[in-house]
């Protein structure tokens, strides 16, 4: 078998590890390192950063040719809808309150499935809003502002 081509995911991953490790060492180095006897705040993080660099290099040395799982297509619709749902919750919950946030998160994430009829999605979102309010707000007593 001839020399296998370098594995792109491995290269990217190892490269990212090394770069990130370097930046950690730089940032942590600005914290006081201290001595072995009196470890400063930067000591352990620098060690961790060095570990990242070392292991990143090890990947390149030892695992360059490991066969990787077949990459399936990127689920864009899922990423946008579910990510968007979480973002909407984050933005709405502090501005408009719990109920709008939950409803919007439920509705937007329902859109992840291409074939979900809109009406059903609205019903599900409403049911979920009532349900989570019942479970978290009432049964567990967590304090949420329903509407701001």
């Amino acid at each position, binding site marked *: *078998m001839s020399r296998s081509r370098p594995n792109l*995911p*491995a290269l*990217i*991953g190892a490269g990212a*590890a090394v770069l*990130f490790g370097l930046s*950690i060492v730089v*940032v942590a180095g600005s*914290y*006081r390192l201290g001595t*072995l*006897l*009196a*470890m400063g*705040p*930067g000591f*352990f*993080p620098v060690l*961790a*950063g060095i*570990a*990242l660099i070392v*292991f990143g290099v*090890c*990947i390149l040395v*030892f*695992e360059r040719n*490991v066969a*990787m*799982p077949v*990459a399936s297509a990127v*689920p864009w*619709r*899922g990423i946008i*809808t*579910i*990510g968007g*749902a*979480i*973002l909407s*919750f*984050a933005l709405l919950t*502090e501005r408009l309150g719990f109920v709008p*946030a*939950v409803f919007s*998160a*439920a509705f937007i*994430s*329902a859109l*992840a*499935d*291409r*074939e979900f009829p809109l009406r059903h*999605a609205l019903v*599900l979102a409403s049911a*979920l809003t009532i349900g*989570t309010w019942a479970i*978290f707000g009432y049964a*567990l007593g967590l304090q949420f502002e329903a509407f701001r």
Partner: protein
Amino acid sequence: MGPFDNLAAGFAIAFSVQSLSYCLLGVTLGNIVGVLPGVGILSTIAMLLPITYYLEPTHAIIMLAGIYYGAAYGGSTASILLNLPGTSSSAITCLDGYPMTKQGRAGVALLVTTIASFVGSLVGLVILALFAPPLAAIALRFSAPEYFSLMMLGLIAATMLASDVPFRGLVMVSLGLVFGLVGIDVNTGVPRFTFGTTRLLDGISLVAVALGLFGLPEILANAGSRITPKLKAKDITLRSMLPTREDWRRSWMPITRGTGVGAFFGLLPGTGGTIASFMAYALEKRVAKDPSRFGKGAIEGIASPEAANNSAIQTAFVPTLTLGIPGDAIMALMLGVMMVHNIVPGPQFIANNGAMFWAIVVSFFIGSVLLLIINIPLVTVWVRLLTIPYRYLVPAITVFICVGVYSVGYAATDLYLLLFFGVIGYAAMALGFPLAPLLLGFVLGPLLEENLRRALLMSRGNLTIFLERPISAVVIGLCVLLVIWTIVAKVRSVRAAR
């Protein structure tokens, strides 16, 4: 305070109405989660973590642990009926379970795996009850250097044993360490990696990391998929579940062997149910008189792995509770839960919280019995569950994740962190990097630093303390051996491939 006082107290706590309810809730939920492919144990436990903050720690652990071993019971259901593993530790059950379904023996397969799981659980928890207290007594003599070495061993074992890409795992552990260090350094009061924001001073929320890393990529992978079982619920009657005498004869030895394999791998830090089930299957195949039957519906091929993964789960609590060394990501979460409640797992745990320890052990027993009762008549319910289209679950899970993460600190920052770790989780999976080591590094990072600091203080800055103290030296020796062995194995396999 006699030795049996704690046991008695534990019994009383475990049989209290509240404990029983949480146990039932946990195992039922776990069973459902295990049955449903696409909803993971780790994500479920992470989603319920914020709720457990409001519970008594004993109840929290009873419920979360119930989810864990309940899922191990349920995971085989989807494997057998759909050829789709409900949990990773049940993946190997597909190989012989699904052929059995095709042969019309689904009921038998389900019953045998339930019984195998029960036996495995029982033996596992007996081992837990017998071994944990003496081990904790020995470990009471441990101090910072031993803890540090043991944690290193746990981390190294977890990353190097469990996958064929150990260095990727080590990168992820290091990354987890870094994230774990974000926040104020307790010893010096210096904020680290906070970049000026006040939100990060307390560190990154465990729930955000766990759910972002595991939960989000999981939903993403499964959103939009459709699963339809070919089996109707009414096809599985109680009578059809009865195995023949031949089946019993063939099953009891595999169950025994599987239980043993599982107990071994559960005790070892770094390995757990999944490896145990694979090893048990391999052992059965090697020991069988006619290995060609495997893959075509051999009952040994489902009995042994299921016994193994349940016994591994129970015994995995031994290193977690006695030494504070989590064997896998889920145990790391349990550790996180305990720490939030200010309970420090480790040798002190059994000494200081004896009643709680026994309450947990007894509730494991109760939970196993409950699962046996639930699974046999309710199999038809589980089958019907499998027909729920995933599209109804996605919004529910998303909302639970949002509310759960937000409820911990009422900070939108946690949600942004959730998304951040979701990106990392997805990128890691796409690049072939294992995720569990990151969570392990995240949970253990601050503890590692603390113990290193203390050990060096004890030795006045002298690094040789780790080798001077015998236990620590042995453990470090094991670490080194492990690393060397992994490298040698890698080099050999690379050479063989040429």
